[in-house]
C-alpha cells in the first residue's frame, strides 16, 4: 500500500502555498486532500491568494489504484472520506480569494479534480491531464465531471471521462481547461506573478468583494447577482469613508 501524502502549507508574504507531496507522482492516499480545519485556519491567517501545486516534477497522479482497492473494503468509511473530500474541493471552489493551480507534469484523477476546483489553472508545455478512473471501472468522484463540463461543455467532458484518454497542455488550452501554458518549470513562478498582480496593494475586503461577485455569476441569476453587487458596492463605499 502506498505511503501517506503530505500537505505543506507555506506563506510567501500575502500569498499562501499549498503543496501536495508524495514523491515522485504525489499520489493521494485519501480522497480528503487536507483536513478542513487545517485549511480553514491557514486561510484565516489572512492570505490574499492561494496557489496549489505539487512537490517535485508533478502536480499529482491522483489516487493510487491499490490504495482505493483496499479502502473500498470499508464502504461506510470510504463514503465518509469521499464526502469530506468533496467538502474540501467545494470550499476551495467557493473561496473568496483567488485560487490558482500551478500544474507541472501529470495531473490525473483526483489531482485533476483538485486543479478543476481552482479559479485559474496554469500549466507547462509538458503537462498532461486525464481522468483514468474508467480503466478501474470507477469515475471521478470529487465533482470533477461537473466542473470539467462547465469548462469544456458536455461532449468533450464525456469523451475525457469515458475514454480515460490523456491530453497534453495544448489540447487542455484549446478546450478551455487551462488558462495559460508556460515553458517547462515556469508554472509556479507564473502563478506567483499573477497572484501578486491581483493582490498587491489590494485590501482583503476588495479582493473578497470581487471574488464574491465572480462566484455569483455562476451561482445566481443575473438579476440576483446584480442585487448582491449593488450591496457589495454600497458597503465598500461606506467602508472607504470610514477608512478615510
Amino acid at each position, binding site marked *: 500500500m502506498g505511503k501517506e501524502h503530505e500537505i505543506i502549507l507555506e506563506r510567501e508574504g500575502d500569498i499562501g502555498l499549498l503543496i501536495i507531496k508524495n514523491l515522485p507522482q504525489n499520489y493521494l492516499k485519501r480522497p480528503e486532500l487536507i483536513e478542513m480545519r487545517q485549511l480553514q485556519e491557514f486561510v484565516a491567517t489572512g492570505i490574499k491568494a492561494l496557489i496549489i501545486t505539487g512537490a517535485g516534477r508533478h502536480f499529482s497522479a491522483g489516487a493510487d489504484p491499490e490504495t482505493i482497492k483496499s479502502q473500498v473494503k470499508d464502504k461506510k468509511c470510504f463514503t465518509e472520506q469521499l464526502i469530506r473530500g468533496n467538502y474540501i474541493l467545494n470550499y476551495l471552489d467557493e473561496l473568496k480569494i*483567488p485560487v490558482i493551480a500551478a500544474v507541472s507534469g501529470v495531473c490525473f484523477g483526483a489531482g485533476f479534480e483538485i486543479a478543476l476546483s481552482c*479559479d*485559474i489553472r496554469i500549466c507547462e508545455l509538458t503537462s498532461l491531464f486525464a481522468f483514468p478512473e474508467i480503466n478501474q471501472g470507477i469515475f471521478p468522484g470529487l465533482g470533477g465531471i461537473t466542473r470539467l463540463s462547465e469548462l469544456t461543455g458536455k461532449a468533450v467532458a464525456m469523451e475525457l471521462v469515458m475514454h480515460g484518454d490523456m491530453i497534453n497542455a495544448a489540447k487542455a488550452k484549446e478546450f*478551455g481547461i487551462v*488558462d*495559460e501554458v508556460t515553458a517547462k518549470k515556469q508554472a509556479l513562478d507564473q502563478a506567483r506573478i*499573477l497572484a501578486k*498582480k*491581483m*493582490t498587491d*496593494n*489590494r*485590501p482583503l*475586503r*476588495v*479582493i473578497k*468583494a*470581487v*471574488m464574491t*461577485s*465572480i462566484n455569483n*455569476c455562476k451561482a445566481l441569476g*443575473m438579476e440576483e*447577482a*446584480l*442585487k448582491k*453587487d*449593488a*450591496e*457589495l*458596492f*454600497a458597503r*465598500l*463605499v*461606506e*467602508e*472607504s*469613508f470610514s*477608512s478615510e
Partner: protein
Amino acid sequence: MVGNPKISWEVQENIGFVRLVDEPENRMDTRFFRELLELTKNIIPAADVAAILVTGKGRHFSSGADLEDLRKTIRGGHYSHDFLMANYRSFRFFDDVNIPVVVAIKGVCLGSGLELALHGDFRLCSADALFGLPEATFDLIPGAGGIQKFVQFAGKAKAMELIMQGKSFSAEEALRLHIVDAIFPKKELEEKAIQLAKRAAGDYRKYNKKDYLKELTHREI
C-alpha cells in the same frame, strides 16, 4: 433643470443615437444616471427606431463614474441600493432591448463607461481606445454588471486578473479578450458604426453577429 444635459438622444432615419455629451471626459454623475433612466424607461421605448448607436461626443467615450458625486449620493443610506439598481437597470436596458445596439468607442472607456459599453450587442473601437475597470484601485468594485459581462466575454481568469489589478488595456488587448468586436481608424469609426447599425436594423439575430462583423471588416480590407 440647471446646467447642460449629459446625454443627447436623436433619431436619424430608423437609427437612434445616444450620445454622452459631457465633454471632455463624458463623466457619469448622479444627473447622468437620472437622464439615462428617463431615456431608457420612457423615451427610447416610445421611439420608432430599429437600431441604437451609443457613442461619446468629442475625444472620449467616457471616463466612468464621477466618484465624488456618487459617494455623496450613496452616502444617503438605504437610498443607495435603489440608486445603484436603477443605474444597473438603465445599462441592462441596452442588453435586453430587442433591437441591435452598436457601441462606438474612442479615447478612454473606463469604469462605468466600459460597463455601459459591455451591455451593447456590438462594440467597435478606434485604435487609440483605452479600456479598463479601475474600481479596485479605489477600493471599490464595478457594480453595474461589469463583472458579469467581463466574465462572459473574457473568461473568469482574465476577469479576475484585470478587475483586481484595475489596470487599463489597449484596443488590441480588448479585441483579444473579446471585449470589442472590431477596431477601425478613428476617422472611420462612426461611419462604420452607422453602417453596422443600419445593416443589423430590422434583421438582427444574435447568431448573425459574426456575419455582420465579417461583412463590415471585409469591406475594410
